């Protein structure tokens, strides 16, 4: 969407060179060397490893942990607490098959996603796994953050990720008219993602709304509701795209990635 000027500037040059093709056709843009944490409901490791091995794109061994509101994390057994996390991980791996994926299972037996558990997982992903990308498709409903200290704790954890050069991608809430979903509502220090439908899963859009900046492809590939458009599936698409970009230059900072995504949208949108 660059507007031709009589005398092109360096930005025209940048936009002309920085296109989706220039990134995604690079054979090195596979996510290799990038660690990604999927903070969700666990991942059924053997199923995904078998799926990608059969498809001829073997993935790295998935590691992880199971988190609780208090106490140290429990060992990852290679299983999911619900299929949601496996679908999310599958999308990340489909987009960037060579990432090192960590599964942070924060989904309790009652199906609740407690704030303290998410915060514990965020810290662990940053401090122990040293990930570069965190995918948060499970939102924390607003009612669980009524207490200001809790909300501040979550905000601080997200900010800490930002200042440690870790990218956090968070799903916006789907269609609920009243409820805002956190941490996606903490948009500035992270990248919030809404759902959209694109012909190519590598396509995405910058579409600034009240709290959400990006839209990504919202259909998954594997799992019970994968074909149902959802922000849960849009988020790992953009996280996977970021991992591919990062595999070309791993030291990019969150604001650089956000800018590059925006520029890619600008230049790519002219083609779409």
């Amino acid at each position: 969407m660059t507007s031709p000027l009589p005398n092109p500037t360096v930005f025209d040059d940048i936009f002309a060179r920085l296109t989706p093709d220039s990134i995604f056709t690079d054979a090195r843009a596979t996510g290799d060397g990038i660690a990604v944490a999927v903070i969700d409901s666990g991942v059924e490791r053997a199923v995904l490893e078998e799926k990608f091995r059969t498809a001829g794109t073997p993935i790295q061994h998935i590691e992880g942990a199971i988190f609780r509101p208090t106490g140290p994390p429990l060992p990852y057994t290679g299983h999911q607490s619900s299929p949601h996390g496996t679908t999310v991980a599958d999308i990340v791996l489909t987009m960037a098959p060579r990432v090192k994926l960590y599964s942070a299972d924060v989904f309790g037996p009652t199906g609740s996603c407690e704030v303290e558990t998410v915060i514990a997982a965020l810290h662990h992903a940053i401090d122990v796994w040293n990930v570069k990308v965190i995918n948060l498709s499970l939102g924390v409903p607003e009612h669980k953050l009524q207490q200001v200290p809790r909300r501040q704790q979550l905000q601080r954890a997200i900010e800490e990720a930002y200042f440690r050069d870790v990218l956090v991608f968070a799903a916006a809430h789907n269609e609920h008219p009243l409820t805002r979903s956190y941490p996606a509502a903490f948009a500035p220090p992270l990248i919030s993602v809404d759902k959209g439908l694109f012909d190519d899963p590598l396509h995405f859009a910058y579409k600034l709304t009240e709290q959400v900046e990006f839209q990504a492809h919202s259909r998954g590939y594997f799992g019970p509701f994968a074909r149902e458009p959802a922000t849960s599936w849009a988020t790992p698409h953009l996280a996977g795209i970021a991992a591919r970009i990062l595999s070309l230059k791993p030291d990019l900072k969150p604001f650089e990635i956000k800018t590059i995504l925006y520029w890619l949208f600008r230049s790519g949108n002219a083609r779409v």
Partner: protein
Amino acid sequence: MTDTVLIVDDEESVRRTFQEWLTSAMPEAQVFAVADSESALKVANEHAVDLAVLDWNLGSGSDGLRLLEDLVEFRPDVVAILVTGFAHQATPLDALRMGVRDYIDKNQDLNRDTFVAAVRRQLDRIHPAKQQRELNRRLAAFREAVEKVLPIVQTSAAFNDPVPLPAAVKSLLRFVIRGTRAADGALIVRHTAADGTQSTTAYGSDGLVLPAPLVAFGNSLAASVISFQEPVALNDFDPKALGPMQLLPFEANRSCILAAPLRVASDTVVVVELFDKASPGFTDDDKRLIASAAEVGTDLLRQAVAERQTHQLLFDAVDAALHATAHLTDMPSASDTAPPPSVMARLKEGLAADSNATAPPDTTLRLVEAVRALAVRHGPSAVEHCVKVVNDLRKLLDEMTGTA
């Protein structure tokens, strides 16, 4: 825990001296002093004697050892100190077998200190066993009280159940099935108990419990829906794309599924599932409808599930208490006497506090107590007859009033 000591000596001066020594040294103890066997047995009949201080020679042909044999009949755990001027002539083995734990020789070193020390030594020895007996006695009393009250509480709970869970499930499913024009539906309740035990129960559209799911909850469709935190439809039903998920029997072979999570309580989640809407399947309008119904249904189910769980919690606690006290051997036999008035008053208060109760608390308790007494006195068949009579009465009234 008061100690009870019985002194038996036919010499009044000795008797009085012993009593004074003990009451001054152990003011918290209950001390009885009598002259003969007959008076001793009378005291033992009225008081739980822990320790008997018996004179070897009680006069009139009676002796302390023989009296001890009779005292044991009243109080099997009683121990004794034998006071004699002929300690060397005593028969230690027989005496020991009967409960004599010490001898005091009248002719050697008998003074206030040695006497009190001997009594105190024996009381200290029997204290642990006495405490255990007391605990058993109290537990037995507790158990008896619980056994009397439990059936009343259980029956009262049935009267108080504001919306029985199956009825709530049936109402909710009927509403959403009609609203969405689905062909069928089910409701899955996932509960995590305080000890971490998890249970899953599925209900059909008729409100009845479906066979227990054999699929691990983490691999179920319901778990996936809970992760979504909002209604979700499965119209493109491709079993190959289900991934690491297994369908429950009632979910298999469906053309489409619409499901919504309901957060009923912090330890209970519920998933409503609707099946087989005619092509093109479930729409966004259906999602909105089930989302609205879920909010209403959450309140309905919250009440039904929470009430049920509260009752269950109480029953579980009572069962645990009964189980824990089942080994007691000195349990008083159950009787058909009514529970204590304080317990009945508490129950009445509980019943009155429930605005959804279907009968006045007095009436409820009277009926329940009457049935309990009937069961105690005449057995289960009498209760069955009672149920039949009540049902016949209901039919008769229905016919008279034209009630369907």
